């Protein structure tokens, strides 16, 4: 079942078309990477899903229920973490979660138990200070705790790792990985290594539309190999190789990189076999998400 479906979503700000017919579906229990450049419309899409922004046209369904702007009934299924979460700084984390729980209609004992559990999970269990003194990473972790408080079916995170140092980023990604059991995670980012690390599915947003979506493996397969690396065993034997095949580029002493068609590659292989050139390794260069992203958003 799809937790979230978006059909033909359109939104413009003045003369700028931010979303032009976006279609997206997010299945249950996956970590979905929503990838796009800065200003591509990721936050706009997320705010429309949360009913905080009025789309010009298009439909959004969360758990099969239609999202209406201004009314936030579907938000009971959603946990939301904005890119820079802002809390009431005069409260302690526990007090803040209590407020969130009461507002979302949880009962008192559940709020206390769940708050303790989540604060422990995000590493803020022993924190008695008010939020005022928190670092960005701590706020981000508290943001995840509040988003997970009412056990949402869908966790929406808007660039949760963009502003964090490597240690902070790792903590957030680990938490998101652990969350996968409980909820579907939709997270927007432009850090592709984060997507490769934790996402099971992803979509590229470009020019207000989804340019490509699928599992990470499917997306990689959509693009042919970026070429091959050929490493010979000894130096000297390879000189003939580079003379015959001018398109080979020397990478190091006895390593070459080849970018070209399969046919030409088989010709190189044949030459190697016929001339008995000793080979250390031949490796296909896998397309990275980054090269794919750059190609799609060109």
């Amino acid at each position, binding site marked *: 079942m799809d937790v979230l479906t978006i059909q033909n979503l359109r939104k413009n700000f003045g003369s700028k078309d931010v979303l032009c017919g976006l279609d997206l579906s997010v299945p249950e229990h996956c970590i979905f990477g929503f990838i796009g450049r800065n200003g591509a419309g990721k936050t706009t899409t997320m705010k429309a899903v949360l009913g*905080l922004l009025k789309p010009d046209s298009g439909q959004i369904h969360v758990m099969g229920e239609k999202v209406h702007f201004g009314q936030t009934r579907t938000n009971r299924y959603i946990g939301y973490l904005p890119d820079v979460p802002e809390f009431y700084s*005069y409260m302690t984390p526990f007090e803040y979660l209590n407020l969130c729980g*009461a507002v979302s209609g949880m009962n008192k004992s559940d709020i206390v138990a769940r708050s303790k559990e989540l604060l422990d999970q995000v590493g803020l269990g022993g924190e008695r200070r008010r939020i005022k003194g928190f670092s960005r990473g701590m706020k981000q972790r508290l943001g995840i705790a509040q988003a997970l408080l009412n056990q949402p079916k869908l966790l929406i995170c808007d660039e949760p790792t963009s502003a964090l140092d490597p240690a902070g980023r790792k903590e957030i990604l680990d938490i998101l990985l652990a969350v996968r059991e409980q909820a579907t995670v939709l997270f927007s980012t432009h850090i592709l290594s984060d997507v490769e690390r934790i996402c099971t599915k992803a979509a590229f947003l470009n020019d207000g539309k989804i340019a490509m979506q699928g599992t990470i493996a499917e997306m990689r397969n959509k693009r042919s190999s970026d070429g091959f690396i050929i490493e010979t065993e000894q130096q000297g034997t390879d000189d003939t190789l580079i003379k015959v095949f001018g398109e080979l580029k020397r990478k190091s002493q006895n390593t070459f990189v080849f970018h070209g068609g399969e046919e030409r590659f088989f010709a190189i292989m044949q030459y190697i076999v016929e001339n008995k050139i000793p080979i250390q390794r031949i490796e296909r260069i896998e397309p990275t998400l980054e090269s794919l992203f750059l190609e799609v958003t060109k």
Partner: protein
Amino acid sequence: MRSLLSFLKKEYMETVRTGKLIILILLFMLFGIMNPATAKMTPWMMEMLSDTMAESGLIVTNIQVDAMTSWIQFFKNIPIALIAFMLIFSDIFTKEYKSGTLLLILTKGLSRYKVVLAKTVLLLSFWTLGYGLCFAITYGYNAYYWDNSIADNLFYSMAVWWLFGIWVISLIILFSSLLQNNTGVILCVGASVLLAYLLSIIPKAKVYSPAVLMDTNSLLIGMEGINAYIKAVIVAAAMCIVCVAVSIPIINKKQL
């Protein structure tokens, strides 16, 4: 209902922990003490100034002060207290729009009208508390030094001015739902009060203008009864309800 109460609790916690409550109490206490103090000091000040005044031809004779002097001071000073109150609370909505704190709470499922209601209740209660404190202090000193019975319609006057404060608060709420920053809210509330004041200059329209509620002197000295104010009271009360009611659909449609 529980979510409304929780949000209201948060509002009170904010007022206490950000120090606004202390400022508010000190402010209204100061104003409460100032009224009888000014009245008490008037003869002494006049005496001090008598020499200078005599030079310009003014002769100071025996100055009589009583509770009325203090009450007139009270109604002269209370507008300043109301302006301070407005400045303290003018960002009660806009701060939340700007910082994005409201966004998270709304995504937790809080209905927007509850935000309006909670903030309205908070403002009404603190205005009533502050104003009541100021009044009680002045009343107490006046009773100690003089006699409060000299002032006619004292409690009517108090209620009329209290309603004027409520009217201003309802304007704060309305403009906060429309605008994004508190400077805009302050300017628009100021402009509305000015408009009401200008309206009160026109003889035919005067009785309907909420600005009339500020002028309680004729009520205090018994020149006029409460009947003279009844139309303005009805207009102001109706406007309060309309302002808050209109704010709800506006906030519902607001893009955050």
